[in-house]
């Protein structure tokens, strides 16, 4: 069977590319880490791949707002061929392929207009900005999946613990109209919740004060997923802050981390679709 091919973008301050590559490797895909400039120089083409990934990090040091400089690059910088990378991405999506953005990757997907993209016009409809705590924070949260959301990334997931590590993760939605669209079309795929799965805006369970307590968004096609928390930082049970006690309570517990499910889901989905 041909392996699912995964492209992971790096460079300019992105810094979670290695664990993301490890995630896809564990999920059975073949991944390649490529410097963004090699795509602009057309040494690499996104069209050779099934999944395009924008990892977390601090692209351009979060100057001008997280993800902003990178989003501008994708929207406006002309490649050798005269096209922008955004135009290439639109083609990529029409071929039914997938895009994942985590943390800084999510920030820049929304600023580029790829999420939630309610009417397919690729215009910015939401933003991710400074947490209500006015702090960068690394802490583990619980995520509740919107049971009605259709993206294949999140199949069979209900509640997932995961670390957040950001200073600008508060989702702000442009207006009521967009908010309604997001809710009606179930584009808010993950919400911050307590350990029982009850959605909450209480700090620090909701670490940033996001509108709708929303931690992740998808687009109406379900092909694009962006999330603030880091599933690639929970590939192994031993990433969990309470692994010691969990193992004691259940000596047979799987050594895989819950975050791995997302990557297994999408790889499996593409495998099934193609064969």
């Amino acid at each position, binding site marked *: 069977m041909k392996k699912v091919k995964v492209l992971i973008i790096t460079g300019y301050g992105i*810094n979670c590319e290695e664990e993301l590559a490890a995630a896809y490797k564990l999920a059975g895909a073949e991944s390649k880490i490529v410097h963004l400039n090699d795509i602009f120089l057309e040494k690499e083409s996104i069209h050779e791949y099934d999944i395009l990934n924008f990892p977390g990090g*601090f692209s351009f040091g979060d100057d001008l707002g997280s993800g902003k400089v990178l989003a501008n690059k994708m929207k406006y910088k002309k490649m050798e061929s005269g096209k922008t990378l955004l135009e290439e991405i639109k083609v990529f999506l029409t071929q039914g392929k997938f895009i994942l953005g985590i943390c800084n990757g999510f920030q820049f997907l929304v600023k580029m207009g790829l999420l939630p993209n309610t009417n397919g016009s690729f215009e910015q409809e939401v933003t991710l900005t400074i947490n209500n705590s006015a702090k960068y924070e690394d802490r583990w949260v619980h995520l509740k999946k919107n049971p009605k959301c259709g993206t294949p990334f999140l199949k069979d997931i209900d509640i997932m613990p995961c670390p957040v590590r950001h200073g600008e993760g508060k989702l702000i939605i442009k207006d009521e109209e967009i908010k309604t669209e997001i809710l009606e079309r179930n584009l808010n795929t993950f919400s911050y919740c307590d350990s029982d799965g009850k959605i909450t805006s209480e700090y620090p369970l909701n670490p940033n004060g996001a509108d709708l307590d929303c931690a992740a968004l998808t687009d109406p096609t379900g092909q694009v997923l962006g999330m603030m928390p880091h599933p690639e930082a929970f590939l192994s049970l031993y990433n969990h802050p309470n692994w010691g006690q969990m193992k004691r309570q259940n000596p047979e517990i799987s050594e895989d981390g819950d975050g791995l499910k997302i990557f297994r889901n999408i790889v499996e989905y593409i495998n099934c679709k193609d064969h």
Partner: protein
Amino acid sequence: MKNQIQIILKDRIKDVQGEKVKKIAQSFLNINTGKVKTGKIFNVMYDLKEDQISRFANLGLRDEIIHDVYINSFYQDTFYKSFVLVAKQPGVTDDEGISAQKTLIDILDLDLDTNTQHIYTEDIYLFEKELNEITLNKLAEELLGNKLIQHFEYGKFTGKVEYVPEVQIASDNKQRTIDLDVDDDTLQQISKDMLLSLNLEEMKTIREYYSQDRTRAIRRQNDLPEEPTDCEMEVLAQTWSEHCKHKEFSASINYKNLETGEEETIDSLFKTYIRQSTEIVRERLKKAGNNWLLKIFTDNAGVVKIDDESVFVWKVETHNSPSAIDPYGGAITGILGNNRDPLGTGIGGGKLLFNTNVLCFGPPKYDKKLLPGQLHPKRIFEGVRHGIEDGGNKSGVPTVNGSIIFDDRYSGKPLVYCGTGGVMPYKFAGVNSWLKPIDDGDLIIMAGGRVGKDGIHGATFSSAEIDEHSPQSAVQIGSPITQKILGDYLQEAAERGLIKCSTDNGAGGLSSSVGELAEITGGAVVNLEKVPLKYVNLKPWEIYVSESQERMTLVVEEHNKKALFELAEEREVELSYIGNFTSTGFIDVRYNDKKVAYLDMKFLHEGVPKKYMDAEWKKPELNEPEILSNLDYNEILIKLMGSNNICSREDVIRQYDHEVKGKTIIKPLMGSEGKAPQDAAVMRLNFNSFEGIAISNGICPKFGDIDAYEMSAGAFDEAMRQIISVGGKLPDINDDTNRFWTVNDNFCVPDSAFDPVTNPDGKLKLAKLVQMNKALFDMSTFYNIPMTSGKDSMKNDFKSGDIKISVPPTILYSMVAKIDDVRKTVTSNFKADGDLIYILGETYNELGASEFYKLFGELGANVPKVRKEKANRLYKKMMKANEPALIASCHDLSDGGLATAITECTFTGNFGANIELGTLSDIGIDAALFSESHSRFIVSINPKDKIKFEEILTKDTFYLGKVTSKNNLTINSKGKKLIDTSTNDLQSAWEKGYK
């Protein structure tokens, strides 16, 4: 023409940063600002058309969901009655401006210079209240910025902002020569005026060199003036600085021990104790046929072998002086500078794995009057914390553990220890990665940031005490994004075999990096006009010694130059070819073909006169205090949990990313609620195996007030026992699995050079330093744990007029040890109801300098002593118990002793404990509960493992009681209730702490 763009939040959007300013202004400065609105101003100096500016502002800078934009006008609202504008001083790093430039060329599709500053950013704060100038100035200088690096405007906002921090330097690149044929006073004055930090003897040695016939002949042949040039004096001062040459650690010391009557001459503390102990360990390893100790002392960082595929490289050092005057800039520059050590070791291009940091501050609630130039400890704390946050987080390097210590004596000069570990492949393109080969003719290439006036005299400055006139050019702001891009590039270049080796540009800039590398071939030619500058009109010597950050010096063979430059272009890294290595025996520095420095390498590196110093140890007369007998131990424990040196650091820890890279297994806080503090950090090394490392820090300066030897030995033991606690294994000379241990020793001491007037107790201070070194030697050779790298910082005094605040002699041991399987490591928090609790190791009546005595304002005399034979026996038994995973939780005992350690083990959801001290309290209840004897642990085990566990631990363990499922801690002594209190109350006291 200048265009100004203002980006400001729409009125309906919550101004989170404004609210934060309002809150801190109230709590820290007691100023009621009313509502605060924040905005950013971009001064664009490129020549652009109106539509271009509009497009750039609206598409490039504005986030349309939340921002309004003003072009050549500013947001104004009569609701806000006053304002503060915070701009940068000319030449201060403005990363946001640079990023704006990069986005500008993308958006407008223009080909403009983005390497020098054309867009200057400024922050504006609008305040609801009408505040007077004094109040606004206070807000500006004590909360919003630092006048050393920032320019402020304030008052009532008139809708105009004029100030733009363009650098303007009058053209003057004339070379000066220095006449040294003068009397002693004038010589010393020259050193002082030029900020050389050279003493009289050193100045005389330089004069002697220039008066030699040989020197004169060589200078004539090379068309150089007879007298030293300014550049030469600067190079000598930098190379001979305490920072670079460690003159006091190399000094000959006459050491008198008045306690024993012994007297000895120590020829170099470094050689006698640090180097020697490690050489002994290396010999023993070699004899046993094990050679994981690959590189010690000779490069930017030490290197040990992980396996046949990879090596581990790491360095810990300090950045104290800069952090005292600009805490944020000092710390971020420290952390990034420290990152460049493992990046620039051997060939260079390693992958950074973690950061660790240990900070010593004055207490946050310091209430003494501040001296001129002294910043409030709380401000230093927050600035340093922020610097570490940005330095680590923005570089994608997890900050996996650390420690914060509060003591009044750190309120003048804080100690900021930064450590970074990295992994290199065993070989880069077939060459052992830790080697540093250089040949005559190899190219010198500078990579990374541009050169400006920033950080000139950093090397000599750190060797001087701070006063209110400290030069502002010593302040720099690191740029993590520039360095991240440089580091990524270096990795790629090393993997492709394009660089022969590299080093970082830190203190002393090019002068230091080229000077040190040139020792390998015996000379170098440098052409300073080739060095790219941030702005024009720097003098040649300034270019050579500037400490502008984020630069590496690469050694490259001619045939790789083209490919290296092509890759740099693709990765947006600026390279410049600035010279060649030679074997002439001279450092030959030129500016437009004119020689500006021409120095004999031998004189430069070996000419510094040896120092002779005196040390005299006299035991302090101390007694044990009388403590009341009817104490309320509940109250005492609550107080201890909330005391400065014990309370929770969660707020700090959470602002550091401690798990980027996905390899952190034991994080600083663990357990179901992520609250329980841990001992060593544990990381796995890759995703293919569960092999890993444990990282720890040992530091306990307070014990040095009683006994500096025991303090140093205790800090060594503390770092070791943290690693043993998480399941690490002691080193074994005969083990052939590369089970490495590697230590960075970092000494930070007050001025220890005796002077009857300015430093009358200098001999005692130096004696303490000697004893700290003796302990290092004894511990290292006993356990076979090598020092692979380290640093000393010798003048940690803050002076203002006649007042001097000196740090206590402090040593930090930072350790890393290999872990076979991270899945078998042990965390500190209790795991299950009914588990049995034991204390391991013997408790003595050693309350001297304890946190318990501190509650009563007492020091005491019984300092905790390290008993290495006993500790060694215990650690071996623990290793044996960990093999079959008999230990469910393990926490080492340190500040606060047994009572606080048990309390911390309960910070994980719904556990408490019932403890009976039994015969443990035969040494006295206070000692049993709060003694800080070393080499002890609180462990819990599953009851089913009781027999097996006790068989292994035998007499080194003492049963204390059980874990319960109630949120309550009881501690009894022979049936008498000492402590009976809710763990929730204990936890909340611990969390509230110094806040």
